[in-house]
């Protein structure tokens, strides 16, 4: 088994909800609620789920963009949560992030050169001439031209801007990159270019990805292992092929049945899930999926099942398999 790069245990991220004149805390959104997850070196771990399931929050909490409410994170052999100041900054070089919206994640007033030099400035690396050479090399790596350094983000198309974001993320040669819906805002033909680029860079630079997406076709194409989330919890975690061939959790099954497939003509949609995603502010008791679950049992509303392995390759949190 591959070396473990990051391991989180019982990770929680709750956001307080405040109301009234005194902004008293009246409750909390349990965006991530007790997640155990390991990330292996060199793999792509997919996080999939519908809006509000906590996939983005989990990604951000894992790299301490959000401070976790509870739990532990072990990264590169040390406790990631204990770090502060200089040590934290040093360790953060090793984790980077790519966002969905390449329009919002690049400063419109900075040239591409300035954007890509910034990581080096922050970490006090290299002389100005060395930096320029580094930046030009980065641009080549992501399929842009070195002469683009003096241009501004608005001069690029969406796909090219995403390439700039990727160049920025790999500038410091990180171990782990969180890709948060990196192709969701792009056209189909451009998505393929970016996915191929990410794959090439992973091989070339020995990167580990946590790949967040709501698009199951993209997840199936891109990820080695997949964690399915529902209302702050991982309900199923498995090797890609196992998960897509033999999904165990009723939610995973419903999710896979909902994907429109092309080339199969018109299809009856009998396995459409009824009901809506409940508010994370007030999630259902026990297993949060129970109000929509076709296999609901008496125990489901009372207690959340643990994420346990049905096989070596597959873990599922469902009373059907306890």
């Amino acid at each position, binding site marked *: 088994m591959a070396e473990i790069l990051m391991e989180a245990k019982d990770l929680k991220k709750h956001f307080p909800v405040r109301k009234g004149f005194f902004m008293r805390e009246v409750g909390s959104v349990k965006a991530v609620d007790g997640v155990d997850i390991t990330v292996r070196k060199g793999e792509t771990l997919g996080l999939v789920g519908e809006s509000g399931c906590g996939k983005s929050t989990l990604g951000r909490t894992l790299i301490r963009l959000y401070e976790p409410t509870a739990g532990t994170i072990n990264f590169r052999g040390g406790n990631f949560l204990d770090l502060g100041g200089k040590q934290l900054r040093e360790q953060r070089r090793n984790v980077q992030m790519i966002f969905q919206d390449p329009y919002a994640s690049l400063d419109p007033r900075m040239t591409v050169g300035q954007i890509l030099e910034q990581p080096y400035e922050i970490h006090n690396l290299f002389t100005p001439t060395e930096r320029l050479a580094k930046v030009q090399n980065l641009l080549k790596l992501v399929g842009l031209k070195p002469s683009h350094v003096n241009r501004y983000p608005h001069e690029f198309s969406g796909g090219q801007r995403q390439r700039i974001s990727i160049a920025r993320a790999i500038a410091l040669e990180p171990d782990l990159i969180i890709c948060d819906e990196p192709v969701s805002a792009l*056209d*189909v033909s451009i998505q393929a270019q970016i996915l191929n680029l990410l794959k090439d860079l992973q091989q070339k630079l020995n990167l580990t990805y946590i790949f967040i997406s709501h698009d199951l*076709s993209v997840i199936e194409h891109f990820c080695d292992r997949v964690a399915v989330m529902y209302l702050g919890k991982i309900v199923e975690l498995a090797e890609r092929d196992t998960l897509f061939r033999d999904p165990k959790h009723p939610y995973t099954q419903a999710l896979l049945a909902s994907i*429109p497939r*092309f080339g199969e*003509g018109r299809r009856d*949609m009998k396995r459409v899930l009824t009901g809506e*995603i409940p508010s994370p502010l007030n999630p259902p008791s026990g297993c949060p999926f129970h109000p929509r679950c076709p296999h609901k049992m008496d125990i489901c509303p009372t207690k959340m099942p643990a994420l346990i392995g049905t096989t070596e390759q597959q873990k599922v949190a469902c009373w059907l398999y306890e």
Partner: protein
Amino acid sequence: MSTPGNLNSTQATLEVRNLETTFFLKSGPFKAVNDISYSIQRGKTLGIVGESGCGKSVTSFSVMRLIEGPGKITGGQVILNGRDLLKLPEDQMEDVRGGEMAMIFQEPMTALNPVLTIGHQIDEQIIRHRKVSKAEARNRTIEMLQLVGIPSPMERAQNYTHQLSGGMRQRAMIAMALSCNPVMLIADEPTTALDVTIQAQILELIQKLQVQFNMAVQFITHDLGVISEVADRVMVMYGGQKCEEGDSTQIFSNPHHPYTVALIESRPRFGNRVERLKTIEGTVPAPHELPPGCPFFNRCPRGTEECRMLKPPVVEFAPGHTANCFHPVV
């Protein structure tokens, strides 16, 4: 209720002939819709698919005559049940919109007013198009809300849009669109902003109502999966022009236009995993960079000089399956 036009079975509900919509930009005029023709029969769905900027939405807005400056419909005919909508005076066109022909959008908030209750807005539309009292209109509203699967419709009619979830808003918008029994529904990316499980519900609802109302549907999306699920016929657009048109099964199993082929191959195909996706090199050209001939020329692996300069011919491969291309994939 009015039953306009002649309703013999062979006549298409909507027939668009050589439609052309031009945007007069500083950089020069640009044909966002360039000589597009298609027809949709009653009870059938035409899917229009393409990437951003291909003209699929402008086509729909042109059919509804909702194009505003700097854009203008500069040619063609839009025939709904035998009447050319482009020749109607604006007040008669207003009767058509929301009456015979309705439209639903990706973002319900663009179609629904946030400061009026859902019920009020649907009532208003019914009263605008039908000679009914307020009470009758409200009954119809409640009936419609129930039909689209909104629970406790009496109470929901008194809600404002922000009190509904994304899926429920979409349902409310569909209720409003169908409240006057349109014969033609234009759906512009109606499920793009929704989660997959909710998307599946809404697609199912649209198909159920299509049968119930016996409507022709023009369904616009960039999602090949959605299109193959809902459409009987598919039109692929690029750079304002039609690339290929055919039955859904023909298009997906036997595509002939190089763009259709590339589009299908560049999309990760669920349950059909490949290690590496095929890509379409380059990006969609800006309006002023479009070549005089085929708009796909600069990204096409088969492009030749004639493609750049001349409008591609329409080649028929099977009855009803055509591609506009000099060098189609066969």
